[in-house]
């Protein structure tokens, strides 16, 4: 049997015993589910009295009652405000989730995305009535192409993983257009899980490229694995260890020499925006997470947007719709015909994530070319500062040389302490911070990946580092209780993930609640 990613504690030590619910604790209110608030016949929306004739829907109307509770407006507001207060957020404190780029979300962007000319625009209105929206898309495309040094961009993918799929489908179409049905995609062992998952979704077999001791792609291994069956090499750069691949140009050269395309996962573009153009590195396709580098809000898990920049060779295969400059203004080519004849087709209904385009463009225009370069510099500076301040106590996975936008530590420094990476992370919650990314990348034991981003002040970074150092001192002092039982001060204690997975309860039901 092969074991992946084993050995993580996922269950609280203490056995769960039922204790009565508490009504509140300070500012935190206990809050039931909407299904327990009793509004089975209520509604919080007022409608005009209007009868309808359902004669032609005979036999098609719902016969079962719709068991959905309704709440009045004040009850609704209180319910969701109470729930909101059980969340950590970037607006509250540093949120150092490595590879997620949790940075400040400007409220100007929110305001502009809600202008009626953007939010109240139907995707299938006549083209003549949406020229402003198409102009936003065109301007965004221009900024993305200029910042990456790439000639084309497909805007429509709805998130990073969707962008990866877009890139691989364009690569697949380009190979097939030459009658070359290649079957393999190479990706480093340190790759984010979406890379192999996407490659498999695109119909490819995934093979891993080894990593060197210094955390980079092993060129010799790459060269050995490249061959006539390899369609693409997928490399994250800066990589998931927070390091820039120094041999990236050679990786591109080897890849191209083997007749394959070079796909760059641009999840970490924030580290190099304005300082390095992927087009100068030999990249053929790269997705850009607008919700990372260009600061559209993460929203508790989306929505995101994942435009993909493409080389001239891949551009003809970009998904529909295409935005083009027509005689009377902007136009959309919505089917794979005419200029878009080579397109691999449509990835979703409509034009992509317009709401995210407006936010990202407002963010870019605010920073400008000079500010975006400063973004990369400050993001890298902040990460190296955290790495420098913590390295005396924690063990950096790659101590030599600078990191990029995130600092990676392993759990060597916790060995023998009785405290695991998970325990340490949970204790950070008690100290007011969101934990860093844990146990990723998989190539580093007990990984702790810290990405502060450029929107943290030196004061907040020091507050964070001082807290970590104080916690580390407690580990050394043998105060393991503080860790293994953590968090003590969160709305809930550690949750039983094992129970959740063994006996899945994925929805509320009257029977189960009775």
């Amino acid at each position: 049997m092969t074991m992946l990613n084993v050995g993580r504690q996922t269950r609280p030590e203490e056995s769960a015993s039922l204790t009565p619910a508490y009504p509140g604790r300070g500012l935190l209110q206990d809050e039931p589910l909407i299904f327990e608030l009793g509004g089975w016949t209520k509604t919080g929306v007022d409608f005009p009295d209007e009868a309808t004739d359902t004669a032609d829907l005979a036999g098609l109307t719902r016969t079962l009652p719709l068991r959905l509770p309704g709440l009045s407006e004040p009850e609704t507001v209180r319910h969701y405000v109470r729930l909101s207060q059980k969340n950590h957020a970037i607006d509250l404190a540093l949120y150092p989730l490595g590879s997620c780029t949790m940075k400040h979300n400007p409220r100007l962007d929110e305001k502009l995305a809600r202008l009626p000319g953007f939010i109240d625009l139907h995707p299938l209105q006549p083209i003549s009535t949406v020229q402003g929206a198409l102009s936003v898309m065109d301007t965004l495309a221009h900024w993305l192409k200029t910042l990456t040094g790439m000639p084309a961009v497909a805007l429509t993918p709805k998130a990073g993983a969707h962008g990866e799929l877009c890139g691989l489908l364009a690569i697949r179409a380009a190979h097939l257009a030459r009658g070359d049905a290649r079957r393999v995609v190479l990706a480093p062992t340190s790759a984010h899980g979406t890379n192999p998952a996407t490659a498999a979704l695109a119909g490819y077999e995934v093979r891993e490229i080894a990593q060197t001791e210094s955390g980079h792609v092993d060129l010799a291994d790459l060269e050995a694995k490249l061959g006539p069956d390899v369609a693409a090499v997928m490399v994250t750069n800066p990589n998931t260890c927070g390091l820039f691949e120094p041999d990236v140009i050679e990786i591109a050269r080897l890849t191209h020499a083997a007749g394959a395309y070079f796909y760059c996962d641009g999840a970490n573009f924030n580290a190099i925006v304005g300082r390095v153009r992927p087009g100068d590195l030999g990249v053929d396709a790269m997705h850009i997470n607008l919700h990372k580098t260009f600061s559209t809000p993460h929203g508790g898990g989306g929505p995101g947007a994942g435009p993909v920049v493409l080389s001239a060779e891949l551009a003809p295969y970009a998904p529909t719709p295409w935005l083009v400059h027509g005689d009377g203004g902007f136009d959309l080519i919505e089917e794979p015909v005419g200029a878009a004849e080579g397109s691999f087709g449509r990835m979703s209904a409509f034009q992509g994530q317009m709401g995210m385009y407006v936010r990202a463009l407002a963010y870019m225009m605010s920073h400008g070319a000079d500010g975006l370069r400063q973004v990369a510099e400050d993001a890298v500076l902040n990460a190296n500062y955290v790495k420098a301040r913590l390295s005396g106590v924690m063990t950096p996975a790659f101590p030599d040389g600078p990191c990029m936008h995130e600092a990676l530590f392993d759990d060597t420094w916790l060995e023998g302490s009785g405290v695991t990476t998970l325990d340490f992370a949970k204790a950070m919650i008690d100290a007011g911070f969101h934990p860093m990314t844990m146990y990723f990348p998989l190539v580093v034991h007990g990984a702790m990946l810290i990405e502060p981003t450029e929107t943290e002040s030196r004061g907040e970074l020091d507050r964070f580092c001082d807290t970590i150092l104080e916690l580390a001192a407690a580990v050394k002092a043998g105060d393991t209780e503080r860790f293994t039982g953590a968090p003590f001060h969160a709305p809930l204690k550690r949750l039983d993930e094992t129970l959740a997975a063994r006996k899945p309860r994925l929805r509320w039901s009257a029977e189960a609640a009775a």
Partner: protein
Amino acid sequence: MRYLPLTPDDRAAMLAVIGAATIDDLFIDVPASARLAKPVDLPPHAGELEVERALSALAAKNRAAGTGPFFCGAGAYRHHVPATVDHLIQRSEFLTSYTPYQPEIAQGTLQTLFEFQTQVAELLGLPVANASMYDGSTGCAEAVLMASRATKRSGAVLSGGLHPHYAEAAHTLAVAAGVETHRLSAAIDDEAAVIAAIGPDTACVVVQTPNVFGTVTDVTPIAQAAHAAGALMIVVTTETVSLGLLKSPGEMGADIAVAEGQSIGNGLNFGGPYVGLFACTEKLTRQIPGRLCGQTVDAEGRRGFVLTLSTREQHIRRDKATSNICTNSGLCALAFTIHMSLLGGTGLRTLAQINHARTLSLKKALAAVPGVEVLTPRLFNEFAIRLPTDAAAVVEALARKDIIAGVPYARLDPDAGLDDVLLVCATETTTAGDIAAFAAALDANLNGEIAA
């Protein structure tokens, strides 16, 4: 720069702590040939006022749906969203948090996801729902792949009433995954053709109701035929409000139901972001793509919620995952769940009835225009009409009179030979005045010369 807190003094002091002379020392791994010496050729930074001015000018070049008569549907619907919804989703704790990886400090997001999943499961009439997909169309494509995995078969029958964009998105994903789609020709009502197309290698049958032409179908007989052949029934709904009045997919025998949830809580947004609703039978739970939130207890026995059954997902199963989806539509799902909590089953039913009533008024008014033929036999809040001329030309002409008349079917499916078909929609936002203005303008456009 207002978003960057570091001062020049901070930067100098921090470089000293790091032991680097200049910021360039931190970029030494970048090949020298790729280091940009100066900013790229784009405008410099701008203040709030300038950015607001520039983007407001672009917004003003669009004709917002709410500024006049407006009749577009076909996969995206203009509904009234209560002010409360947008206020609540802009709370920092919802807007600026991420995927709830640390459940102890993410119960707000997790509990709303649990409520969302329950609402979606109830609406779609199936026991299990996930925490959202990007939108209805990508949910539909994922459902086709899921059915293929579950049945170990490689054929998918797509009804001719399925939104063409959905069919195309499913086809794009299916081709790469080795699943063959059999898309039937565009049809207002094609139950018999769908049943006839089911074969021994059919993994799933995909039927939309109300379909792209607005036709409401009881898919029960199709589901029975699919099941008899060992295939799964996938029911697609692009207008979630219809579920307030119509039989749910589960009630009609769906194994997987997908819907576009934009109608509830979310604006039109020119096509995105939207929120895909995805539900299935219990048996298929472990094949479901995307995130699932589940109930559990904390170390003191208090109820809490976590992301669960994660071994299906990309970050654990990598190339064997059920999907590559990672980020989904969290905030749009939150907007959906808040709006649905305000409506409740009672409000949703009333909303659906009003939509239906306004659409019957629209149907009556348009049917009275000489030359217009209503094609849709059973409708909810949208329907297809045949015009005596090219529908796109009529839509353009009416747009010049500030009436957004609907969606020419040919825009979605240019090869179907249905250039004279127009898809129209009315919702609770459509007024009697809007309908009268549309009917009069259409009459003038089609019959103007005769009348004059």
